[in-house]
């Protein structure tokens, strides 16, 4: 498959990928956009939403459109780290230890309900996310790029879960909130299933690849050349720094968030078809970058505020940059 060589081609290809995904995932344009940005930026995504909104379909579609390997792990309380990464087993025929690779050896990994597994298993996966390699019996195995973990959480059924620690949440580039489609989109979805345009099951056979892993890596490389003005970069930093001393927040975002915000802002500009970042791009990606990196103060929680409302207030108060 042809690979983009210019920013315009990369933007067109990204737009094509987005369009194809939206054909399958009805009424989740914002989710598709954010996941695509995270994928191009080389980050991982934590998706929060109730079951039945198409999280698995999204990952399968991504795999199909980008010709990437796909695996899914259902996290449960008895899941062991080796169930994720793999382990060495003794082969009696060859009388040698053989490495059995776990489901983490893939390119798109859906870690379903990650907070249902104990911290030890979560940590094993998060190490994979950070290092992009898996060590079994002292031997390191590099993972094939592009590599992305899409972990999901259910916001409702929290009993018997192991909430991800702050340090581990920080490893996710975006936290994406997936919500019910609006009335019009849901009507369209039901009609499409009823008239046979799409199947109710997770059928992605109708999708055709827009590019492959190499194409995606080319888009990622080109996104690095998107211009970000000093004032815009300063604006991103001011947003992140304000979270550390803002009413309603007990803990702000780390410097990793500043890097993530700038990186995501660049990709957002590329997807929008621009070769430069505007303050608006930073605002667009600020919420998914920051919502899992901040911690509400007790007062704010008692008042019924959410990370969304506090971030909304913060973005209103941080002055937009001027030229």
């Amino acid at each position, binding site marked *: 498959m042809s690979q983009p060589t210019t920013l315009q081609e990369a933007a067109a290809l990204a737009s094509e990928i987005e369009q194809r995904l939206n054909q399958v995932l009805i009424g989740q344009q914002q989710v598709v956009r954010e996941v695509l940005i995270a994928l191009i930026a080389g980050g991982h995504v934590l998706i929060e939403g109730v079951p039945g909104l198409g999280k698995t379909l999204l990952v399968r579609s991504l795999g199909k459109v980008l010709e990437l390997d796909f695996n899914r792990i259902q996290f449960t309380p008895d899941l062991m780290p080796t169930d994720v990464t793999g382990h060495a087993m003794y082969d009696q025929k060859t009388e040698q230890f053989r490495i059995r690779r776990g489901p983490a050896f893939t390119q798109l990994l859906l870690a379903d309900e990650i907070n249902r597994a104990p911290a030890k298993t979560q940590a094993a996966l998060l190490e994979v996310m950070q290092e992009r390699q898996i060590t079994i019996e002292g031997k390191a195995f590099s993972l094939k790029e592009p590599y992305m973990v899409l972990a999901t959480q259910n916001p409702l059924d929290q009993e018997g879960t192991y909430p991800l620690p702050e340090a581990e949440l920080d490893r996710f580039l975006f936290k994406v909130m997936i919500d019910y489609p609006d009335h019009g989109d849901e009507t369209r979805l039901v009609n499409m299933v009823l008239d046979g345009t799409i199947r109710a099951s997770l059928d992605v056979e109708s999708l055709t690849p827009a590019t492959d892993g190499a194409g995606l890596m080319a888009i990622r490389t080109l996104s690095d050349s998107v*211009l970000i003005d000093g004032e815009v970069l300063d604006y991103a930093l001011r947003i992140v720094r304000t979270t550390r001393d803002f009413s309603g927040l007990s803990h702000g975002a780390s410097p990793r968030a500043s890097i993530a915000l700038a990186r995501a802002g660049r990709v957002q500009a590329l997807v929008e078809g621009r070769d*430069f970042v505007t303050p608006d791009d930073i605002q667009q990606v600020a919420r998914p970058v920051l919502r899992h990196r901040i911690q509400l103060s007790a007062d704010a929680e008692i008042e019924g505020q959410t990370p969304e409302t506090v971030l909304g207030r913060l973005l209103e*108060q941080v002055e937009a940059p001027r*030229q």
Partner: protein
Amino acid sequence: MELEKASARLAPRSPWQAVDLGTQMFRRWAWPTVRIWLAFTLLPFVLLLAYASMLESWWPLVLFWWFKPMWERPLLAWYSHALFAEELTLKTLFKRWKQYALPGLFAQLTWRRLSPSRSFNTAIWQLEGARGDQVSQRHQVLHRAPSNRAGMLTLVLFHIEQFMGYGLLALFYTLVPWQFNLELSDWFFEQSVLQTAIASSCLYLVLCITEPLYVACGFALYLNKRTWLEGWDLQLGLTRIGKRRKPNGIAAALLIGMLALPFSEPATAVDHRVEDMHAEQQQIIELLAGEDYMPFETRTQREWKDQDNDEGEEASWWEAFWKAFFDRANDNTSTNSKPFSIPDNLIWAVFWALFAGIVLWLLMKVASQVGFTGRTRKQNHVIPTHVAGLDIRQQSLPDDINAAVENALHDTDIRTAMSLLLRVSLATLLREYPVALAAGSTEQHCLRTLQRQHGKAPGIEVLQPVVNAWVRTAWAHRPVSADEVRELLAQWQAVRFVEVPNG
């Protein structure tokens, strides 16, 4: 009644010290009283429980609860004798049941059932044998201020009873093997026969402890009140003095007079001479019930703390104001004589106004939290002065926009020209279509807000290319050409839907 035989020291106590005495009594006689409780109530409870199970209804068990005054009578009879060194047997209690259980029982099971002072009042019927008007008179006398706190005792023990009941139920729940897969919420909300039986049994077991305690405390409060009113401690002292000396006529007469005070059931058992002095007894009851007997007056007065210590120091005007305020508010007799007086009514009016204000404020806060704001208020947006750091105040803009743009273009300062064009566009548009913009609003956000709220008005349509050109100039460092700037300016002026300053 021979007070000197009392196994507790009869002395005037505070109500809570009296309750302590009752607790001590229960601790000392816990087993006999629990046994009496079980002897009188176990069979009725089991029968009612069985009946409740048959009916699959709570009503028979409510009946058991309703008859609590009746179950308490044997306990009080036992305590009243045990305190004076006579421990009645179960057989005796059963035999005498009619004597002590029936007086006033009908009233206690009907209109007086929910009286919070039950533990205290039972003694009036049961121990004094009061009837008819006598009961009211005795109530008046014994319930005089200061309060005997019998109502508070009932309230406290009611809560203890509930906590212990639920605690026992929870303990039972924790001991049920997990294989039964017992769900606590189901346990409370889906009452099967078995669950009703277990819950009722738990409550009955708790009553085995709390009922003897409740009766003992009520009895102790009753004894305490009579000690206060009738000077039993003095009587005992006189008796002791009388025993040390040779009894003379006056002391004997005084002793007889005091012993004749109403406490009829044990008294008849002790001294037959009391019967002969019924007239004097009646006279004493009337005297105690009279208005003039130990008149109590409740007065509420506000005073400054450490008033005496501050006399030497000169008070500030603020302190003087409040002192005058309260002094006059307290002194109703001088209301008319002092010009600064504020009557109690006014204080109450201020208090209620403040209270109503706080409640209203809380309601409004809650309403705003849940998103209810009543009538939609007309939004009067203030015209913003800055957008994305650009000053769009009228006075900051040049008088002749054309000339200013041309000058900037002449100096090849495209950025300044574009900045001017954007500022004047925003200034005029926002004056015409005010929208709420925050400090963090970007140029594109401003454009989107205008488009969302005011559609595609001609001016807003022209604003879009201006914003795009400005964004490219400002953030991509790729200024548009001078001709493009002139074209945008021309488009802008062609719309002419609002006045351009001197343009």
